């Protein structure tokens, strides 16, 4: 019940404290090179990449080391100059180990990138595919797939996602502030490739400095839409609803309502790839959280072990930590800090374990979870149906529409792990289908 004139947004959702002030003013620094990197052959949705180097090979920073295996897959490049130490199963932040190219960095190398110039001569989708770019917002969908419009479809609007609605994370915010022209140019390239009539950058109101900078730099070529600070404003469907007022039908894609959504970080990477010929070998990662006294935004080479990153930033001395890859709402707790930074990883957050005092109480049927769910689902019911393993009813209640934003668990006064249970429910339904 906010009575002040409110910016456009979607219905429902939650208002977690954004905690961004801790790192929002911190210019993007650089993570120094470490001894060993592990570049997973799967950092994206789709097929694993195929290595084209062998153990013992010397690779140069930026060199192609694995090729995409199919249309929905990506190239991988060496994040450092060094020697291929192994190609083997290695830990991955998803918790599922995958094959990775392990590179031992050359301590004497100047870490210059191999020579490569601008690539404006080929189609954008090809340059992006060559550069191994994935969606930088977290889902890590190969970006080139979303740069070509399928036969018979049209895209009228390109929506750039600068919401960054997850608390603590500030990497997109910093990119927009520090590289507005690159973001805008990248946006323009994507817009041209898609043949979209307009492009809009959606930015949450708590980043109005970034919105101003973008507006000033764009000189009107791209519109900047300020949207309300609310979680999950950065979810594709919610952003489309807020900015364009369109509702993506259940089980459909933004494309079905004539929209394609890309992250602002992706636009920056696209710009780098086309103008400088630089592949995606590093990304901005926000390292923050209550157990990090000096939060940072850092350029981190892909493949840097999380433990090295944390050692560099420094943690408070605690008995037990929760290390999260991603944001505090949708991120994933990590069990193995040898796992590397991957292309879709926007943040590493460290929470004290004591933070999680989660005594569960019975559901008091207060309905808060229904009021929070941006998909208008009935989380408490889905939780019950999952416990009863009632697959038919789970389907009837659209369990698959849940995108696991966690708003329901966030509000539940009884601390019921709703989204965790619903994830299990989704798995039950998936398994029943095969």
């Amino acid at each position: 019940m906010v009575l002040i004139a409110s910016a456009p947004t979607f219905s429902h959702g939650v208002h977690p404290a954004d905690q961004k002030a801790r790192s929002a003013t911190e210019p993007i620094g650089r993570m120094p090179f470490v001894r060993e990197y592990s570049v997973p052959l799967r950092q994206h949705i789709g097929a694993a990449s195929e290595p084209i180097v062998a153990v013992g090979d010397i690779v140069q920073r930026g060199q192609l080391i694995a090729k995409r295996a199919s249309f929905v897959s990506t190239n991988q490049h060496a994040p450092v100059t060094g020697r291929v130490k192994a190609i083997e199963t290695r830990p991955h932040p998803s918790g599922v180990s995958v094959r990775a190219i392990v590179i031992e960095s050359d301590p004497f190398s100047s870490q210059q990138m191999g020579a490569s110039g601008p690539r404006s001569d080929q189609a954008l989708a090809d340059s992006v595919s060559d550069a191994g770019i994935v969606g930088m917002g977290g889902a890590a969908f190969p970006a080139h797939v979303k740069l070509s419009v399928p036969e018979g479809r049209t895209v009228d609007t390109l929506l750039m996602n600068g919401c960054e609605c997850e608390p603590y994370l500030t990497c997109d915010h910093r990119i927009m502030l520090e590289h507005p022209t690159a973001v805008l140019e990248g946006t323009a390239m994507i817009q041209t490739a898609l043949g979209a009539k307009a492009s809009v950058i959606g930015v949450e109101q708590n980043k109005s400095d970034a919105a101003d900078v973008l507006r000033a730099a764009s000189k009107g070529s791209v519109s900047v839409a300020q949207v309300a600070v609310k979680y999950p404003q950065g979810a594709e469907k919610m952003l489309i609803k807020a900015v364009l007022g369109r509702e993506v039908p259940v089980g459909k894609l933004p494309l079905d309502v004539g929209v394609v959504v890309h992250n602002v970080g992706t636009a920056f990477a696209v710009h780098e790839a086309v103008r400088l010929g630089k592949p995606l070998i590093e990304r901005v990662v926000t390292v923050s959280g209550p157990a990090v006294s000096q939060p940072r935004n850092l350029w981190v080479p892909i493949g840097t072990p999380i433990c090295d990153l944390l050692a560099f930033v420094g943690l408070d001395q605690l008995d037990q930590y929760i290390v999260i890859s991603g944001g505090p709402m949708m991120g994933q707790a990590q069990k193995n800090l040898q796992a590397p930074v991957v292309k879709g990883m926007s943040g590493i957050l460290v929470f004290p374990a004591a933070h999680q005092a989660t005594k569960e109480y019975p559901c008091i049927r207060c309905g808060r979870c229904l009021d929070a769910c941006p998909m208008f689902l009935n989380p408490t019911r889905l939780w019950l149906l999952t416990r009863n393993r009632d697959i038919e009813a789970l389907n009837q209640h659209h369990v698959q529409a849940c995108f696991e934003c966690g708003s329901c668990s966030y509000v539940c006064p009884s601390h019921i792990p709703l989204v965790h249970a619903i994830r299990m429910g989704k798995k039950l339904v998936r398994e029943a289908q095969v």
Partner: protein
Amino acid sequence: MSKLLLVSSPFVRDERNTPQLMRDVIGSLVPILIMSMWVFGVIALLMVAVTGATAVVTERLVTSKRSLHDGSALLTGLLLGFVLPPGLPLWMGALGSAFAVGLGKAAFGGLGANIFNPALLGRAFLQAAFPEAMTTWVAPQMGFWQLPERSLAWPLMGSHVDGISAATPLGGFKFQGLTTDLSEMVVGTTAGSLGETATWLLVLCGLWLALRKAFDWRLPVSTLFSVALLSWVLHATVPERCADPMTMLGSGGLMFAAVFMVTDPVTTPVTAKGMWLFGFGTGVLVVLIRSFGGLPEGVMYAVLLMNAVTPWINRFTQPRVFGGLA
């Protein structure tokens, strides 16, 4: 202990939790108790203490699993105390409280599983068992230390009814065609159940609880709104049966129920639409029972009836999934 802890997302949570919500509601009953003591004397304290204590003891006795310390049993007991007439023998209060917690709550499976508002179920039980005692009202402000004689009666000793009975505003209207001064109802110096008379205080408590997000504001708002609307229409058409909207809102158990009974999350719908429906249904029933029923007051039955249809309301007010067909 491992260095790392694995828990499911999300890692941040809204600070409100269930025991806290219960505590908020219990806390807001304190000023009401004080007010009630000012109006009815020390008997208010005694009654509420008896029902509250009985509720806690009963919960300990009937639930096998470790008590959850969520405060819900205490709350049930306290709420029951506040909806009983001041002169009711204390043992009846205790019996009602044991019934409310033992059968109204625990028998359904504890907090969250009960269909009916347990406090009101306890009151309904007492009303059925002791109809006379439950409809005898003590006049307000008899003196702080003066206990109605029968309050301390021994169980089942056939308490005779004192001569000090008074009419509640609604009873007065129904049976004698009397209207009560609005200011008296607002201040609370009328006959009635222990906690229900001071309308101004109930409104304040309700606002505080709403601000604390202890309950969903849609429930009391829709209830009160529909009472006002329907009584406005009915008062205009059949004024001898239906009191004016202000009397309707300020009298009887309506305001107390609007703040403490229709806001009980457990026994009311979970869907937004359902909450509106529940409130409107309750309000309409209240006005209809008060105006056309045999009893002057109908809040209890209205709420219990709506409790009964709540599972059904939930089923038919499922929200439309985002991006689903209209």
